[in-house]
C-alpha cells in the first residue's frame, strides 16, 4: 500500500547525484500493482531519469487521473507533492497548477482510458495550450483497474482476454498529439528502459507540453495472444525510429555523429538532445513528414518509437499569456486598493 514507505536505510555505497541524493531518495511508496505490470517499469525509469537530472524531488508536482497507471505517482518521488485528479481530468488540474506556479517541474501520468476516452478533450486542450509539463500515457490498450474492457487505443483486430475482437479504429496518442500541434511527441516501451530514460529527461527539459506514449503491457488483462499491446507483440513489431540522447547543459557532446544521421537540438535551458536517426526517412522536426512516416509504418503494423516530433520554438502557456516571472501563489492585500476602487467607481456615477 502506498503508505508503506520502503525502508529508507542509508546506503552509503550508492552513488549520489550532484545534489547529494542517491536514487533511493527518488523512490516512493510500495507499488500495489500486479507483479510484472509494465507501469512499474515506467516508474523505475522516471525515478532514474529524475535522479540523473539532479532534480530537487520536492520541486516536482506529480499528477494523475484514475486507473492503475494513475496510481503510480504514489510510487515515486515521495518528497514531491502529488495529486490524483478525477478520472480523465488531470490535464485541467495540471493547467491550473502550472498557471499558478510555473517554477515547478510538472509530471503527469495517465492511462489510455484516462487520456483517450473520458479525458480526450482535456488532453487535446492541454496540448493546445502548450502547458509546460511532461505527460506520460501508460498505454496498455485496456482499462486495467476496471478489469479488462477495451480502451480507445485498442487496435483493430486486437483480441480481449475472453475473445472479443475490437473493430473500432484506435486513437493513436502520437498521431493525435502531432496533429493537435503538440511540441514534443515520443513513444516508448516499458520494456526498453535505455530508450525511455533519455526520452523522459528530454521531455522534462522541454519547455511546453511533452507527450510520451509508453506501451506498457497489462499482465492481468491484455498480455495474451491476439492482444496487440502484449509484451510479445510489442517486442515483435517494435521499431525504434530515432534514438534520443539527452545531454545536460554544459556537458560536452562527446560522440562524433555521422553527418545526416545525427542532429543535436538545443533546448531552452541549454541542454541538448542529440537525435540519432535509425530510419533516415524520418525527420522529427517536420510535422507533415512525421505524420506521413507514422502512417507508413502504421500500415505495416509497426510500432515506431523514439522522439518522433519536436518543435522547440513553440510558446508555452506563460509565454503566450506574458506572465510575470514570479509564481502567482502569494496574495497580499494591496495598499492601493482604496484608490483603485475610487478610480473605478468614478465611472459608475
Amino acid at each position, binding site marked *: 500500500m502506498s503508505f508503506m514507505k520502503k525502508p529508507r536505510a542509508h546506503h552509503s555505497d550508492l552513488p549520489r547525484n550532484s545534489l547529494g541524493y542517491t536514487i533511493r531518495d527518488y523512490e516512493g511508496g510500495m507499488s500495489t500493482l500486479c507483479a510484472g505490470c509494465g507501469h512499474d517499469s515506467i516508474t523505475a525509469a522516471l525515478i532514474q531519469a529524475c535522479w540523473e537530472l539532479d532534480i530537487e524531488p520536492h520541486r516536482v508536482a506529480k499528477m494523475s487521473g484514475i486507473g492503475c497507471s494513475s496510481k503510480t505517482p*504514489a510510487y515515486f518521488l515521495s518528497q514531491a*507533492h502529488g495529486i490524483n485528479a478525477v478520472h480523465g481530468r488531470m490535464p485541467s488540474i495540471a493547467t491550473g*497548477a502550472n498557471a499558478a506556479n510555473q517554477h*515547478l517541474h510538472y509530471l503527469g501520468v495517465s492511462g489510455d482510458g484516462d487520456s483517450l476516452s473520458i479525458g480526450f478533450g*482535456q488532453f487535446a486542450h492541454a496540448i493546445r495550450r502548450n502547458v509546460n509539463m511532461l505527460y506520460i500515457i501508460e498505454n496498455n490498450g485496456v482499462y486495467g483497474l476496471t478489469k479488462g474492457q477495451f480502451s480507445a487505443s485498442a487496435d483493430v483486430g486486437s483480441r480481449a482476454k475472453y475473445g472479443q475482437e475490437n473493430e473500432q479504429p484506435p486513437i493513436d496518442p502520437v498521431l493525435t498529439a502531432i496533429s493537435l500541434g503538440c511540441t514534443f511527441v515520443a513513444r516508448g516501451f516499458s520494456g526498453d528502459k535505455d530508450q525511455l530514460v533519455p526520452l523522459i529527461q528530454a521531455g522534462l527539459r522541454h519547455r511546453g507540453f511533452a507527450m510520451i506514449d509508453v506501451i506498457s503491457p497489462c499482465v492481468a488483462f491484455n498480455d495474451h495472444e491476439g492482444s496487440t499491446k502484449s509484451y510479445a507483440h510489442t517486442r515483435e513489431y517494435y521499431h525504434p525510429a530515432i534514438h534520443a540522447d539527452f545531454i545536460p547543459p554544459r556537458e560536452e557532446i562527446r560522440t562524433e555523429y555521422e553527418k545526416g544521421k545525427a542532429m543535436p537540438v538545443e533546448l531552452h535551458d541549454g541542454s541538448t538532445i542529440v537525435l540519432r536517426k535509425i530510419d533516415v526517412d524520418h525527420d522529427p522536426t517536420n510535422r507533415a513528414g512525421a505524420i506521413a512516416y507514422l502512417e507508413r509504418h502504421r500500415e505495416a503494423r509497426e510500432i515506431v518509437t523514439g522522439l518522433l516530433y519536436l518543435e522547440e520554438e513553440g510558446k508555452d502557456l506563460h509565454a503566450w499569456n506574458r506572465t510575470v516571472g514570479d509564481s502567482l501563489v502569494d496574495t497580499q492585500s494591496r495598499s492601493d486598493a482604496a484608490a483603485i476602487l475610487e478610480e473605478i467607481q468614478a465611472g*459608475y456615477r
Partner: protein
Amino acid sequence: MSKSSVNHVNDFTLKVATVNGTGSASANSLLMKSIFRMGVPVMGKNYFPSNIQGLPTWYEIRVTDPGHLTRSGDVHFMVAMNAETFAKDHAEVTPGGYLLYDSTWPRNRDLNRDDIHIIGVPLAEMVNQHFVEPRTRILMKNVAYVGALAGLLDLDLAVIEQLLKETFGERKAKLVKPNMEAVRIGYDYVLEHYDCPLPVRVERADMTRGHVVVDGNTTAALGAMLAGATVGAWYPITPSTSVMDAFSAFCGKYRKTEEGEREYVILQAEDELAAIGMVMGAGWMGARAFTATSGPGISLMNEFLSFGYYTETPAVIFDIQRVGPSTGMPTRTQQSDLMECAYAGHGDTRHICLYPADPAEAFDFSIRCFDLAEHFQTPVFLVSDLDIGMNEWMVPELKWDESYRPDRGKVLSAESLESLSGPFRRYMDPDKDGVPFRTLPGVHPAGAFFTRGSGHSKHGTYTEDAAEYQEVMDRKARKFLTAASHVPAPVIEYCNSTEVGGKKRVRPVRYGFLTVGSGDLAVREARHNLKEKGMEFDYCRVRAFPFTREVEDFIAEHEIVFVVEQNRDGQLKGMLLAELEPEAGKLVSILHYNGLPLASMHVESEVVDHLRKAEAS
C-alpha cells in the same frame, strides 16, 4: 380626455419594448443614467432574448424611493417600438398610463385602449429625413425616443449631452453631435405636439449622492481582483460571461507590471469540467483561483466539486443563476440552483454558499468567498443571479476596508515544516475546529503528501479502512459546523425593536418574511406596503449556507414565516426544513419563477391571499 392620468413625480415605471441588435441597449442605459445624474433613484432591468439580433427585448426603468428599486409589477409608461410585441405591450400599461409609439406607420386600430394615453411620434420618418446611412438611421431612432422621453418626462438635456460625451470619450468625440441632433428631433417634436412635461415625470433631487450605478458581475469581478485572485478559469456562458470580461479588464489595467507582464492568468477553458479542474489545480498549488458560470456549468462541475470537498481544496465558484432546467431561458433570471450549489456532488457533500442581494454585496461577498475558501479549504459558492449580475443597480458606493488582510488559512511555511518533528499529517484536527493544516507544493520536502479523491486517513494516506475513512468524514462534518459561525449572518429587521441601555430589545410580531438574494427589495417593498395596510411582518434575509443560529431563531420566533424565493420547488424552504427542522407548517412558500425579477406586487398579493384563506378556514 375623461381618462385619469398617472401622476407620479419621481415615482413610476417606464418600459421600452424594442428589437435586439438595434442599439437600443445603449439608448436605454443613457436614459437610466440621466435620471440617476438628476439625483433621482432609479432601477434599470433588461429583458433580452437569447440571440444576437432581431428578437424582442424590453428595458424596464423604475424611478422611486431608494429602498424600493425593484420591480413593482406596474407599467406607467410604455415605449412600444416593436411591432411584433405591440399588442402585448399595449395591454400591459396600467390604466391612466402612457404609451409612446412610432407613428411613422399606422398602428392596428384594434389596439387602442381608451383608458391610457397614447402618444405618437414619427420617429423613423424624422430620423430618416435627417440621417442617410442605414445603420445610423437604425441607431438614431433609439436616441430619438430618448429625446422624446426627455421632453415628456422633463429630463435635463445637458445631463444627456454630458453622458454622451463621457461615453464617446475623446476618440469618438465627433459622434456626440449627431447623437444630440437625434435627441433634439424627438425632444422638439413632443414639445411641439404634447403638453410637456407630463404629470408622470422626473424632478431633480438629491437622493443619489454617495451611490453608484453598476451591475453585480462587475462588482464580483472587482472583488476577485482586490481579494488577490490570480487565476481565473471559465467557459463562456450567459449570464456569467461578463464576470470574466470585467476581471480581465480590471487585471489588464491594475495587474500588469511596467513591462506589460501579467500578474494573473485567465484561462478560457474548453468546458466547465476543465474550468473547475483548473481552479482546483491552482487552489491546490496555493493561488486564489475562481470560475464563473451558470446552472449548466454547475451541473458539469459536480464531480470535481465532490473532489474539492473531499480533498479539501480551496476554490471559488460564482454561479450567476439563470432560468433552468437544462438550457432553460439563458437570458432570464431565477434562483433555482440553490440546492444544486449547496449539495453539488455525489456522496455526502455540502458546500459553503454566500447569497448576495445586490451588486454592493456581491463585491463584499466575492472577497469573503476567497477568505472562506482558504480558511476552510473547500469550494465556496457566490450564488448570484442574472438580475443582480447583469442589470444595472443603484447601490451605495463600494468601500474598501483598510484593515482587510487576506485570510490564507492554515498553511505551513517552509520554516514550520523544517522544524516539524514527525511526518506531516494532512487531515488532522489540531485546533478542534475541524480545520486541518495544509502545505503547498514545492515549498519543502517535509510538506509533501499525495492529494487523493479516494479514501484517505487523517494522515493523508490511502485507506480502505472503515474507521479511518469515517474519522475524516466526521471531522469534515465538524468543520462545516465551524463554518456556520464564520459566514455572513442574516439581515434581520423587526417591526418592534427598542434600545435599552445600549442593548437591542425586540418583540417579534406574528409573521415574518424570509428571503434570499435578489428577493430583498421586492420583499421589503411588499412589507412596506403591507404595513401601510396595517399588516406587520418582521424580516430576515438569509445570506449564507450553512444557516446560522440567527436564522433558526428567527423562524422559531414567528408563527408563520413566508419564505419568498424565485424557483418552483421552494428550494430554500426545503433546505431550511432539512437543516433546521422547524415546526411543521410554519414555513409558507411564496414562489416566483417565470424568469422576470420578483415584483413586490406578487409578494404582497400572495401573502394577503394566504392569510385571507387561513382566516377563512
